[in-house]
């Protein structure tokens, strides 16, 4: 009885009793969710265009951020460091397409997934070798990102908004809009959608798969850099992020592998959901539930709606 009360009633009473705290928790979750969404977005871009489930997206975020920070530490001005990091991600995209993807065309998707796991190892090894394994602070101020915070007085309390979090949300929205425009208005965007629909048909009308793949990997490289900057600004740039980035996989289950809106909604759901769960229910289980909440939620979701929030129902054919 007491247990049922503490699960079903007490947390909600607490939410209503301290609405300012509740808002703060939701905001924290929201911001974490934005970052999950961004990582998931990188996954979706690549999966849509090439059918590759890119396990390396998480390490790409770390890699991009480390490249940026390290370049700046070498004395390169911030704006140039950003450009150079983009260049590195571009080279990486071309390299991956040339050396890995091109050779694995038409392979089973599990093989492709494992290839990106191999890629993860390579990027991790190279990243640690070149940039060093220790955590580094992000060059937030040098990039012109805001650092202060604003207090919002509400419900007889205050909710604190870190400016960097607001910036992260705004930048994420802008980036999704830019991607939307890119996909729907440009020639390459059209080609991308064609490839996403049907590789062979796209090939037959003269679209170069190799080019398209390199472009999407570069696009998710850009997304990775932005994610890395935002994440780094909130905490620091370290390889620990790689494990956290796996949560984006759970986001994909919720949102579907091919849906950009799905990635965003899924990311926010998981971000907010896990914060609320940790804060209001975590004590019941002994805290630390954030580590598995996303996956278990995804698991439950899979059992009831395997195609994700926005996916279409799958009809199997023989």
């Amino acid at each position: 009885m007491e247990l049922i009360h503490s699960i079903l009633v007490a947390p909600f009473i607490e939410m209503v009793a301290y609405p300012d705290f509740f808002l703060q928790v939701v905001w924290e979750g929201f911001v974490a969710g934005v970052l999950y969404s961004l990582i998931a977005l990188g996954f979706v871009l690549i999966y849509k265009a090439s059918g590759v489930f890119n396990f390396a997206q998480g390490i790409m975020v770390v890699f991009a951020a480390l490249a940026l920070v390290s370049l700046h530490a070498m004395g390169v001005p911030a704006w140039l460091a950003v450009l150079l990091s983009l260049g590195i991600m571009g080279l990486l995209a071309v390299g991956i397409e040339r050396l890995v993807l091109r050779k694995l065309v038409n392979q089973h998707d599990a093989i492709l997934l494992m290839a990106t796991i191999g890629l993860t190892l390579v990027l991790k090894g190279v990243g640690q070798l070149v940039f060093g394994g220790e955590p580094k602070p992000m060059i937030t101020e040098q990039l012109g990102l805001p650092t202060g915070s604003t207090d919002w007085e509400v419900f007889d309390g205050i909710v604190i908004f870190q400016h960097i979090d607001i910036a992260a949300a705004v930048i994420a929205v802008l980036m999704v809009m830019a991607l939307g425009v890119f996909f729907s208005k440009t020639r390459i965007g059209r080609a991308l959608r064609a490839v996403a629909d049907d590789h062979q048909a796209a090939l037959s009308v003269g679209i170069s798969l190799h080019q398209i793949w390199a472009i999407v990997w570069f696009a998710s490289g850009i997304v990775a850099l932005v994610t890395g900057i935002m994440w780094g600004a909130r905490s620091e740039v370290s390889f620990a992020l790689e494990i956290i980035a796996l949560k984006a996989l759970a986001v994909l289950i919720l949102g579907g592998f091919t849906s950009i809106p799905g990635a965003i909604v899924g990311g926010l759901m998981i971000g907010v959901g896990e914060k609320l769960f940790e804060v209001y229910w975590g004590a019941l289980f002994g805290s630390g539930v954030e580590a598995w909440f996303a996956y278990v939620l995804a698991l439950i979701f899979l059992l009831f709606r395997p195609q994700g929030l926005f996916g279409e129902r799958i009809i199997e054919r023989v």
Partner: protein
Amino acid sequence: MALQADVAESDGLPVAHAQTGQSSVQPGGAEQLLKVEHVSLSFGGVKAVTDISFDILKGEVRAIIGPNGAGKTSMLNVINGFYHPQEGVISFKGKPRRRMKPHQAAASGIARTFQNVALFKGMSTLDNIMSGRSLKMHRGFFWQVLHVGPARAEEIQHRRRVEEIIDFLEIAHIRKQPVGKLPYGLQKRVELGRAMAMEPELLLLDEPMAGMNLEEKEDMSRFIIDLNTEFGTTIALIEHDMGVVMDLADRVVVLDYGKKIADGTPGEVQASQAVIDAYLGVAH
């Protein structure tokens, strides 16, 4: 009626067992093996099959034909339980059923081959055909672990049956090769062997001759006829090659846009105006 020979006894080709004592192989007076009544199937509003009824008699070769997209494969999928029709009843061996899982259909004696070869690509020809014996092997986990005594005896018993099928289909030379690398015609043959290994009462063949050259088609026709006449296996086949259909089939059912438009002997069907219209098109 079908190939139900006792495994342990059969040393040579499984020829004689099937037919002894039975005389009702001929269609006409034979009993119904499968009966499809008023079956309709749709996928979220898209109708695949509408109100179809037909039967398959014991021992006959029944062809299902029709233009592309007529719902032929959907019909097979309904019969072996892969799709569940929204309406209608299917009776197999006199027992009506509505919802059935594919493995239950297999257990009740329905085997099939697929339009796009669906072999187990990582396994050899031998293992693929052995896999058809899965339902007939019963030794539990304990014996499997030891792989002595009963489990081994069982494995060898079934191996003997499988070797007979391999002989029948003339694929002894590719026995140990992984099927993924075999040419298409041979893959189709291995798939037929796999279905045969199940010793089904009803064998569904989904375009067994698609993509074959003349010689391969002749071989395949020969196997189908032998299977039907020697072992008495009832066969339902989908095929686009009208020459083959008219030669092999005892009776033909014709589908178009998910509806049945004709049913009868090859001669009757060929003469039907509805069939001619469906294949050649009509002036509206």
